[in-house]
C-alpha cells in the first residue's frame, strides 16, 4: 500500500468518482422485540478508512458491529458493504477482535492465529507463513510456540489482532479491543494499531467508549447515543498522519473531543 498518510493526501484520495464507499448505511434500524437497539444509522466508510464508533453503553454500537459482521440482520434501512473496486465476500472478508483476546487456551499462538484460515479451508503452508508474518508485524515474533497463558494481556490482544488479519479480510471489526487493558498499555496499543492499520491497509470499524481514543484513532467518527438509541453525529477527523501522542494536545483534537462530549451530554 503506497499511502502516505497525511491529512492532505487523505483529502485528495476522496476525489469524487474515484472511489465509492466501501460501507454504506442509510437509516439502518434494529429492534430486539420492543427494544430499539439502533436507529438512524447513516454513514459511509471509504476503503481503507478507520471508523471510530463511539458512544455510551446501550447505544447499540456492538449491535451495529454484529450487523456489519453478518451475525445479525438489520430490520430497516439500507446496508451495503463492498463496491465494484472493492468487492466484499461476507463469508471470508470479515476479521473480528473483541474486548477479551479470546485465544484458544489449548492452542499455541501460531495455531491460534491460523484459526480463521483453517475454518475457511485455506492452504496450511500459506496461512502458516502469513501467520508468522503477521505475528512479526504485531511484535510477537518468537512467541509462535507459546501458549496464551504465557503471554501478557496486551500481547494476547496483539495475537488476536494477528488472528483477525490472517485470512486477509477486507474489513476488520473491533469491539472495544483495548477496553480491558491498563491505561499505559492502551496508549501503546493505540499507536500499534495505527501502525498495523497503515501496514495492512484494511478498512477498520473500531467500537469504543473512549472519546479521545475514538478521535485519536479514527479518520472518521460516528457518535451514537443511548435512550433512545440513535446516531447523533458523523464527521471526518482532520488530523495529520502518522498520528503521535503529541496530537492529543493539538487544538483541533480538543475541538473534536469537546464535540463528542457535548453530544453525549457531558458538557
Amino acid at each position, binding site marked *: 500500500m503506497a499511502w502516505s498518510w497525511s491529512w492532505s493526501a487523505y483529502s485528495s484520495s476522496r476525489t469524487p468518482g474515484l472511489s465509492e464507499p466501501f460501507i454504506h448505511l442509510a437509516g439502518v434500524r434494529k429492534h430486539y422485540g420492543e427494544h430499539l437497539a439502533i436507529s438512524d444509522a447513516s454513514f459511509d466508510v471509504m476503503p481503507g478508512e478507520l471508523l471510530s464508533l463511539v458512544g455510551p453503553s446501550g447505544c447499540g454500537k456492538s449491535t451495529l458491529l454484529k450487523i456489519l459482521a453478518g451475525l445479525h440482520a438489520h430490520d430497516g434501512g439500507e446496508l451495503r458493504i463492498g463496491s465494484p473496486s472493492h468487492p466484499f465476500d*461476507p463469508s471470508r472478508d470479515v476479521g473480528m477482535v473483541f474486548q477479551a483476546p479470546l485465544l484458544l487456551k489449548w492452542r499455541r499462538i501460531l495455531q491460534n492465529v491460523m*484459526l480463521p484460515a483453517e475454518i475457511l479451508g485455506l492452504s496450511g503452508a500459506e496461512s502458516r507463513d502469513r501467520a508468522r508474518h503477521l505475528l512479526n508485524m504485531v511484535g510477537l515474533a518468537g512467541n509462535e510456540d507459546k501458549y496464551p497463558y504465557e503471554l501478557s494481556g496486551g500481547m494476547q490482544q496483539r495475537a488476536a489482532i494477528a488472528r483477525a488479519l490472517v485470512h486477509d479480510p477486507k474489513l476488520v471489526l473491533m469491539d472495544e479491543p483495548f477496553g480491558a487493558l491498563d491505561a499505559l498499555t492502551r496508549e501503546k496499543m493505540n499507536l500499534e494499531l495505527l501502525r498495523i492499520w497503515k501496514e495492512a491497509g484494511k478498512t477498520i470499524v473500531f467500537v469504543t467508549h473512549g472519546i479521545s481514543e475514538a478521535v485519536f484513532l479514527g479518520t472518521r467518527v460516528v457518535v451514537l447515543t443511548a435512550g433512545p438509541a440513535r446516531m447523533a453525529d458523523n464527521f471526518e477527523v482532520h488530523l495529520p498522519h502518522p498520528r503521535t501522542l503529541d496530537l492529543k494536545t493539538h487544538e483541533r483534537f480538543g475541538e473534536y473531543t469537546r464535540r463528542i462530549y457535548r453530544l453525549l451530554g457531558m458538557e
Partner: protein
Amino acid sequence: MTNSRAGRWTLAILAHLALLLAWYLFVHLGNVPKFVMPSPEATLNALLQPNYSWWTNIAVTGTEIFGGYLLALVVGVALALVFTWSKLLEAFFMPLLVSLNMIPKVALGPLIIVWFKYGVLPNSIMAFSIAVFPILLTTARGLREIEPELLDLVRSLKGSRWQLFTKIQLPGALPYIFSGMKVGAILAVAGAVVGEFLGSDKGLGYLMLQVQVTLDTPAMFMAVLIITLLGMLLYGLVLVLERVLVVKDARVV
C-alpha cells in the same frame, strides 16, 4: 521429598506397601481366621483355583465396565452438544434428566433384568446409566462456559457446525468433560458390579456371590482386588488421556 515428581511417586508407593504390610502383620500376629480375613498370600493363592475361571470373569466384568463407560461418554457428550444447538430441547430435557438422575440407579437393577435378562448387556446398561449423568452435566457446563464471542468469530466466517464443534466447543469443554469422566469412571465400576450382584451368570460380582456361599473369603478378597484394579486401569487411562489432550493451564482440578 514432596516437591519432586520422583519423591511423590516414592511416597505413594510406600503408602501402598505400608498398607500391605499392615494387612500381613494384622492377619499373622493376630491369628485372624482365614474365613474372616485371609492373608495377602492366601488371597493371591485364590488365583490358582481353576474352577473360578478368573480370566473369563475378568473379561466379562471388564467388558461391562468399559462398554458401559464408553457408551456413557459418547451419549453424554452428544446429548450435551445437541442441547447447545437448541435452547428448546435443552429447556425441555435438561430438568427431566436432572430428575431422572435422582433415581437411585441401583434401584433400577431388578427392572433392567426384567427388560434385558441376565448377562453383559444389562450390566453394561447399569454401568452406563450411572456414569452418563456426571459426564452429561459437566459437558453441558463446559459447553456453556465457552465465550459466545468465539462462536461469533466462527459464525462470521460461516464455519460449519462440525467445525464449531471440533475446533471450539469440544476442545473448550474438554477440561470439564474430563472432570465428569473421572467421576463417571468410578461410578461405572460400581454400576457393573452391582448389576452382577443383582442378577448374572458371569463376572467378578457373580463369582463373589458364589464363593460367599462356601466362605472362600480369599477368593472374595481377590475379586474385590481385581475389580479395584479394573477401576484403577480405567481411571488411569482417563488421567493419561487428559494429560495428553488438555493443556496444563486449561485443566479443571
